[in-house]
């Protein structure tokens, strides 16, 4: 989870996933929607590949830096 909150140290809530497990995702493509302490926004994938697993369900609040998804990158 990138550091998108305005207040340092505040958690970020997952709103919904825009890509499903097993689907391919491109670097820069919106992967999920989150709600910070200030705004709702999309978070882009930092890698191209297949979304293998989601580790944070909608409504779950996670800390900045938390592992929220696993993307398998093709070699």
């Amino acid at each position, binding site marked *: 989870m*990138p550091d*998108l*909150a305005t207040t340092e140290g505040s958690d970020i809530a997952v709103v919904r996933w825009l890509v499903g497990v097993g689907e391919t995702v491109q670097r820069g493509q919106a992967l999920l929607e989150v709600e910070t302490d200030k*705004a709702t*926004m*999309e978070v882009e994938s930092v890698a191209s590949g297949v979304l293998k697993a989601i580790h944070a369900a909608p409504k779950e609040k996670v800390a900045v*830096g938390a592992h929220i998804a696993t993307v398998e990158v093709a070699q």
Partner: protein
Amino acid sequence: MTRHDDSEFALGLLERMIRIREFEEGVRFLFLEGSMPGTIHQCQGQEATAVGVCAALRPDDFITATFRGHGQALAKGLSEQQLLDELFGATTGCCKGKGGSMHVGDMSKGMVPGIAIVGGGIPLAAGMALAFRMQKSSQVVACFFGDGAVAEGAFHEGLNMAAIWRLPVVFACENNLYGASTRIDLVMRNPRISDRAAAYGFAGETVDGNDVLAVHAAAQRAVAKCRAGEGPVLLELLTYRRTGHSRRDPCAYQPAAERKEWAACDPIERLAARLKERGAIDEAGIAAMRARIVQQFEAAVARAKAAPRPTPQDLEADVFAPAVAP
């Protein structure tokens, strides 16, 4: 005399704009990955303002910039290595890792470290220009600020001071239509910012800020006026911010149709099209240029990640002036 027919010069402008774009895109992902600390303010889509104005300056001329200063820094001749080192907080950064993204600058390259107070650079630029005048130097100052700075008191004070003393300042207003999330027409009855110059008794001009050759031509005229003692000049450079105000801003306030319209007049694409038309470069040449720039960026990132960070021993360095004997 125009240098715009000189393909080598124009290719240099293209190369610098692409370098800024790739730098900003690369930094965007470094931030998302969590490997870069702090927030960032980016300038994708606004590359022509920085590149056009700085190409009209001498190495010993100065610029002031804002919290959105990566583009101006690269355009004024700072290396991407010293910028990336700064963004990662390394001691090898342009401010020894203590400034970060919002304060990039290098006095030896003619860039005051970025001034993050909105409008803060405007009176400062007038002061620097006064110093140049008193030193009988021919240096000029280009002062970058956004449309949001125009409603600040510092704008009036700085422009009026520069006007009454005819100081060599090019006031370069990057009008990207939004001050953070507030659209310009909500805060200005007359949104043509160049008109403000008339109130102070000097010349103002509105320029297509996504046409790097137009920006360069206007900046050249403005700089020539300033060097001849006929300054200052206000340039309003019309452009558009593609990203949020900072990385923490989802930018939902920009209407989709407006975003689309501005995306269609991309400064890099426009110059590339002109250069292709005149046979100065082809698509493969541009792709090769971009690939080389991306490769250099990635190599610089790897070095920046490994560069030394400040230690507690560095805490007071450059904070206190050395004691002077009475």
